[in-house]
């Protein structure tokens, strides 16, 4: 079935999307938002990386393609409206039902997808492919820094260690480089006092680490960032105490990503210096028993979707000035394997959301999942270079110029993406 005829056949079908009007997070365009947008750090970028290669064909599933269920008889998602069916996006693509939390964003046109996108390098090694996606130099392993670090270097205004932050115990490849960046532990520890806050201990270790050739910078960045985070957490607490209608104030959030997303949003709102954030989530390498509407993949997608919705909501008016990208190193095989899973593939789907996103659309040069359309007969081709998507965000959302883009994304073969994902 061609996409057009499918759209037709669905015209009177049960589209489960209900227009919901402007949702809470988009409702208020307060003065805070426009003020902060005018400052050098007013425009925010959050990158979420799904390590392990998420199965994009079950995230934004081509349920309207007659080949889809033939390729995926047990793990394929049912048509929208059916039991466990996908959530209709545009009459052809359907969203995984575990991502229902994102439906309002889609309806608001704040969420878009770019299908059959990814790295042009053909590697199916997780580790090389992640490296390329973080260095933004596919095929080149010796790039010393990550593209997000180069992007921070290109941003206007004075840098501070908390301008770029990552959530998690290790500094990711994508933020590696000469510009300072900080990492916050997962969980509540990020905003509690640490041992160096005790004056005598702090002074003792300052002596050991100040100007230390090898570790001095990391030590000092840690102290500065910690001070900023503590200040942001304190003003967040003060703000929450004043808030009349803080129904969820103090309520424990579910563990994991929704929790970290809420904390991240609170910090960003209360520390205007924070501009770029990175979070990575693992566990997407579903070689066996990945399930369909329920199961392993659904169990991973559920907190991701919830967390992204929490992030959008908690950013409040700042969401209008924020772009959030979700990406993964490559896609998975179009055909399910013998074990109800999928093996390493090529093209995948990128997710982009935010106030400036021309959402409600699935972008990309989509060629279907017929045998002839598949790359090497097994997976999606890459028809949109992931760097083209990122470059458009950097250009249109962060207002970076051509020369800066060339530094962040060197030797990018494909020019501008042939679609306007981000409003000018």
């Amino acid at each position, binding site marked *: 079935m061609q996409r057009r005829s499918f759209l037709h056949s669905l015209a009177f079908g049960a589209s489960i999307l209900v227009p919901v009007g402007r949702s809470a997070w988009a409702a208020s365009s307060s003065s805070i938002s426009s003020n902060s947008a005018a400052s050098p750090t007013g425009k925010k970028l959050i990158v979420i990386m799904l390590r392990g290669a998420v199965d994009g064909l079950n995230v934004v599933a081509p349920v309207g393609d007659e080949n889809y269920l033939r390729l995926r008889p047990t793990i394929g998602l049912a048509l929208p409206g059916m039991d466990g069916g996908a959530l209709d996006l545009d009459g052809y693509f359907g969203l995984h039902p575990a991502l229902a939390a994102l439906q309002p964003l889609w309806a608001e046109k704040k969420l878009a997808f770019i299908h059959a996108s990814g790295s042009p390098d053909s590697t199916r090694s997780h580790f090389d492919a992640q490296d390329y996606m973080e260095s933004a130099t596919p095929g080149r392993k010796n790039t010393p820094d990550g593209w997000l670090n180069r992007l921070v270097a290109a941003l206007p205004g004075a840098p501070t260690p908390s301008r770029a932050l990552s959530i998690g*115990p*290790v500094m990711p490849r994508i933020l590696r480089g000469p510009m300072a960046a900080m990492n916050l532990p997962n969980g509540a520890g990020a905003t509690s006092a640490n041992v160096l806050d005790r004056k005598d201990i702090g002074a003792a270790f300052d002596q*050991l680490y100040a100007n230390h050739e*090898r*570790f001095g910078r990391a030590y000092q960045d840690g102290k500065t960032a910690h001070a900023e985070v503590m200040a942001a957490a304190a003003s967040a607490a003060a703000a929450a105490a004043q808030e009349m209608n803080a129904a969820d104030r103090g309520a424990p959030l579910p563990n994991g990503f929704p929790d970290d997303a809420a904390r991240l949003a609170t910090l960003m709102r209360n520390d205007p210096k924070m501009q770029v954030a990175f979070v990575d989530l693992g566990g997407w*390498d579903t070689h066996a028993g990945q399930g369909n509407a329920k199961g392993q993949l659904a169990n991973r997608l559920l907190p991701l979707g919830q967390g992204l919705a929490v992030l959008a909501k908690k950013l409040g008016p700042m969401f209008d000035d924020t772009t959030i990208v979700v990406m993964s190193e490559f896609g998975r095989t179009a055909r399910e394997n013998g074990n109800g899973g999928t093996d390493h593939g090529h093209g995948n789907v990128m997710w982009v959301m935010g106030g400036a996103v021309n959402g409600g659309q699935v972008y990309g040069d989509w060629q279907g999942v017929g045998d002839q359309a598949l790359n090497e007969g097994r997976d999606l081709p890459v028809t949109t270079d992931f760097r083209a998507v990122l470059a458009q965000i950097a250009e249109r959302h962060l207002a970076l110029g051509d020369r800066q883009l060339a530094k962040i994304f060197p030797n990018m073969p494909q020019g501008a993406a042939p679609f306007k994902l981000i409003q000018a």
Partner: protein
Amino acid sequence: MRIAAACSGYKRKVFTNPGPIMHLPFPSRSLLLALCICGGGAAAADNAALSPDQQAVHVLNRVAFGPRPGDIERVTQMGVQNYLDEQLHPETIAYPPELTARLAALVTPNRKAGDVVGEYVELQKQVRDEDDGARQRRRAALMAVAEETAEARLARAIDSPRQLEEVMVDFWYNHFNVFAGKGIDRALVASYERDAIRPNALGNFRTLLGATAHHPAMLFYLDNFLSTANGYTPAGKRPGQKGKATGLNENYARELMELHTLGVDGGYSQQDVTELARMLTGWTYDQRALIRSNQTFKFDAPRHDQGSKHWLGREVAPAGEAEGEMALDVLARHPATARNISYQLAQYFVQDEPNPALVDRMARVFIASDGDIRSVMRVLFASSQFLAPDAAGAKFKTPYQFVVSAARASATPVKNVGPLLATMTQLGMPLYGCQTPDGYKNTQQAWLNPDALTRRISFATALAAGRLPLAGKPAMVTPAPAIALDPERVAATLGEAISPRTRGAIAASAEPLRAAMLLGSPDFMQR
């Protein structure tokens, strides 16, 4: 605040401000030596060869998880070469009776794989049957399995005199990583480490590779236990009726070449991955036979792809199980494997970007010795790069190395490993908790970050103050009063692992802070 309050009354002992050493009230031998070198000896060491004491520190940092009290003296006395020779033959080093007794008292690390799996499966069944309390029992049982497995590992890492063996276990476990949080592997990692990794840690690479390839922990982790010829119908199912295992799974075949042997640039293609996966179809285990008679591997012939294969440029005639064995032979002896393993060993033991000439030399010995790991290590230890002054301290400790070395230096008896495990988890390196098959990295780039330093300092401070509940689980023993570490003893233990600059700063600080400053110093972050 406790420490701050204690500051005012500190006594000046060894850490007197750098001044004439003669006036010190009898510091220990190594500390005296160390302080002497402040005068200028160590500063000149950049170009000169390492002094005997510096060599001892360096070797203990690489071949062992850092010095314990007396280690530096012992290695200096016996000579670095003799120490290395001894460590290369762990079978000649006796375990202390207390360690033997402690390990013998643990349940899981001494049980057969099948018995642990049997218990695991039974508990799962009870949970499915919604037996009251089954969930709690299962959680408690799994916790006990995990704790005992970790305790066996850490007790050895801290206390075993066969330190190189423990370092190699850390290296090889990461190389052939299995994630303990995945399903039945919770019950299998103890056996995997004990039966596949540890016995071969300094042995033959082909044997080690084969042991991992046949172990149910690996078969499960990378899904090969499910992989079958395309179109295979399990017995008892009608053709077309779906079973769990009805086709090829590439997961293990890919990582076997990419991570375990050839390396990602080892010159194989996607087709080679698929063909190797076909050759390995039928390599599985039978859970019932595993439980009943501890049969840990099964070649299930009906699952095997009977066709001929074309792999790494060779025609592979159908030969059943022998195809997989042949593949392991080829991979273990492949020059790309020799290079890949040698590079990784040199990176772990020498520096993050190892000298190519050293890697070449090791790779040649790897091939000439048919993958004898001990021979490769001997070449590494004898190399000029290994004992070069710029190699000393060049490696940034992984969280595992940091925590274990701190426990060793502190000489605190660790009856409860919980606080050590929690610290590793906070630092991003939960023991047996690496989800991905590449295992944990050991480079500075991977582990140095602002938050890590703060957390390491925090751990060092708690350990030095005696505030970690290492004597026993808080619920089970009456919490002992915190006994702070004696900074002189820690300083003597670490000797020249601590630089003159750091010693000077510590000497100028209040005594109650000194042990924390030693274990949290920049010098102690590196090895």
